[in-house]
């Protein structure tokens, strides 16, 4: 006789008090496969923990975002935000779909070049661009988005000594009604600093002002704020044309669109509160089309959205290391996934799902990572089925920021695989080994 599946025995106290506002609990389904590839096989072959990227999901998400904007506005260009996920394979999927590159450091700029992006299709943002970075970007005809006056003057100086005119835009921060207002990057719109910077660029005569850029914040849940921002940039474009008879080529609305992840402290899940990409597209396109910009001069609309394009395509697979009972009787489950590789656990209440079928029983559980550090908490309290040691779990929506902000701390960074559109699995970043790490270290002679 075939034996029955053993589930850890447990007893749960029933509370007959007031039901929560949302009534019955949501039924959780296991994630047993990703793009028809079995989670169990992935872990057996590539180890645990394991990051998995679905190429199919990247392309699908990109196409739907592209469609949302291009059906509302005549000229649209996406630029892939490298800092969100700069694994080469991921970047190349976006570039193959038609995205330019958006980088914020010399290192990312080099990566964009190595990924075969033409210089004039790389947008260079951020407050940290060295003289060497600026020279290289100017020589390559890249789009340099100026962040502060020191950079502006450095560029004017560089342009005087260079044969090529740097192609520039300025980053503009502004009040769009959202809190907190981001004002640390770029020049302020309301206090006139942005206009001041534009005047200096136009009067310098040796910089080619090609665009205007803003990035109003991150995980912005109000599409309306983008409409306000686009309207303000359009006003500046109109003023530039009126005063200098200069037509800018593009308006770059940056990124910051939210993904469906659940922010910590949020009352409702992300899937209920996050605007769809169509709402962002509608707000931005309407503001530009309804502005005073002449129809013939409508600028190219550039978008640098990162999180909303990649979060959904990333999964993190892991294994249960142990179960414990806390002093107050609560269950805790320890996974081999720590906050060192799942950096976004600091911001989100991640959706952690078993990778194998389970019964309908569940109990309040604290889910911890493997680090011997008190901060290593994935979920403080979640209604979770009783998993056993060696059971597998899947955390979805982890494609953004984790594979760039992860830390080599206590444990090594694991393999990252990509499942291609035909179901083929490829390692796109191999797991670190102790040799990788110690190869960077040097011992002084007296300690050898």
């Amino acid at each position, binding site marked *: 006789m075939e034996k*029955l599946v*053993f*589930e*850890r*025995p*447990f*007893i749960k106290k029933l509370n*007959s008090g007031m039901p929560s506002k949302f009534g019955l609990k949501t039924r959780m389904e296991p994630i047993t496969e990703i793009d028809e590839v079995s989670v169990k096989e992935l872990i057996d072959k590539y180890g645990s923990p394991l990051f998995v990227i679905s190429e199919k999901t990247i392309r699908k998400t990109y196409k739907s975002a592209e469609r949302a904007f291009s059906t509302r506005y005549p000229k649209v260009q996406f630029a892939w935000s490298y800092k969100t996920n700069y694994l080469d394979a991921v970047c190349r999927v976006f570039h193959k779909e038609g995205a330019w590159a958006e980088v914020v450091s010399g290192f990312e700029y080099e990566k964009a070049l190595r990924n075969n992006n033409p210089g004039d299709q790389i947008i260079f943002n951020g407050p940290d661009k060295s003289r060497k970075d600026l020279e290289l970007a100017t020589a390559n005809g890249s789009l340099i988005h100026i962040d502060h006056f020191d950079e502006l003057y450095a560029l004017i100086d560089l342009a005087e000594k260079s044969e090529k005119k740097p192609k520039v835009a300025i980053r503009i921060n502004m009040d769009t009604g959202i809190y907190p207002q981001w004002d640390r990057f770029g020049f302020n719109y309301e206090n006139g600093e942005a206009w001041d910077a534009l005047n200096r660029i136009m009067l310098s005569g040796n910089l080619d002002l090609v665009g205007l850029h803003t990035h109003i914040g991150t995980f912005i849940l109000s599409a309306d704020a983008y409409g306000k921002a686009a309207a303000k940039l359009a006003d500046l474009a109109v003023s530039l044309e009126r005063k200098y008879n200069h037509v800018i080529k593009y308006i770059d609305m940056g990124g910051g669109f939210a993904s469906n992840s659940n922010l910590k402290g949020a009352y409702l899940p992300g899937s209920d509160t996050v605007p769809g990409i169509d709402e962002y597209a509608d707000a931005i396109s309407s503001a530009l089309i309804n502005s005073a910009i002449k129809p013939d001069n409508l600028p190219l609309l550039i978008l640098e959205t990162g999180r909303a394009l990649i979060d959904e395509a990333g999964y993190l697979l892991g294994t249960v290391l142990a179960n414990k009972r806390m002093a107050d*009787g609560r269950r805790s489950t320890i996974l081999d996934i720590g906050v060192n590789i799942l950096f976004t656990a600091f911001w989100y209440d991640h959706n952690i799902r078993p990778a194998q079928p389970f019964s309908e029983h569940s109990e309040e559980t604290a889910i911890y990572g493997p680090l011997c550090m008190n901060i290593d908490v994935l979920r403080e309290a979640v209604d979770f089925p009783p998993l056993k040691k060696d059971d597998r779990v899947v955390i979805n929506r982890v494609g953004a920021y984790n594979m760039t902000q992860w830390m080599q701390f206590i444990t090594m960074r694991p393999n990252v695989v990509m499942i291609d559109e035909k179901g083929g699995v490829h390692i796109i970043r191999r797991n670190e080994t102790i040799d990788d790490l110690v190869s960077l270290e040097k011992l002084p002679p007296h300690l050898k």
Partner: protein
Amino acid sequence: MKIKKNIAVSESGFVFDPSTGESFSLNQVGLELVELLKQGEDFDAIKKEILEKYDVDEISFEKYYYDFINSLNQNQLLED
């Protein structure tokens, strides 16, 4: 290790403790263990029965069994 005599357990795993008025739910394995305990079976007999029926090794079972007993104790379902 004895479970309180007056505890009512239904076939579906619903547990009622008349002395406190509290109720609990058990999963399938939990239910079987409570029933075996109610019948007064000792650990070895219970282990034999579960290992024959379920796909679990001896060490894992022992680990989960004692954790389960702790939960029963925590919920004051065991006799002093």
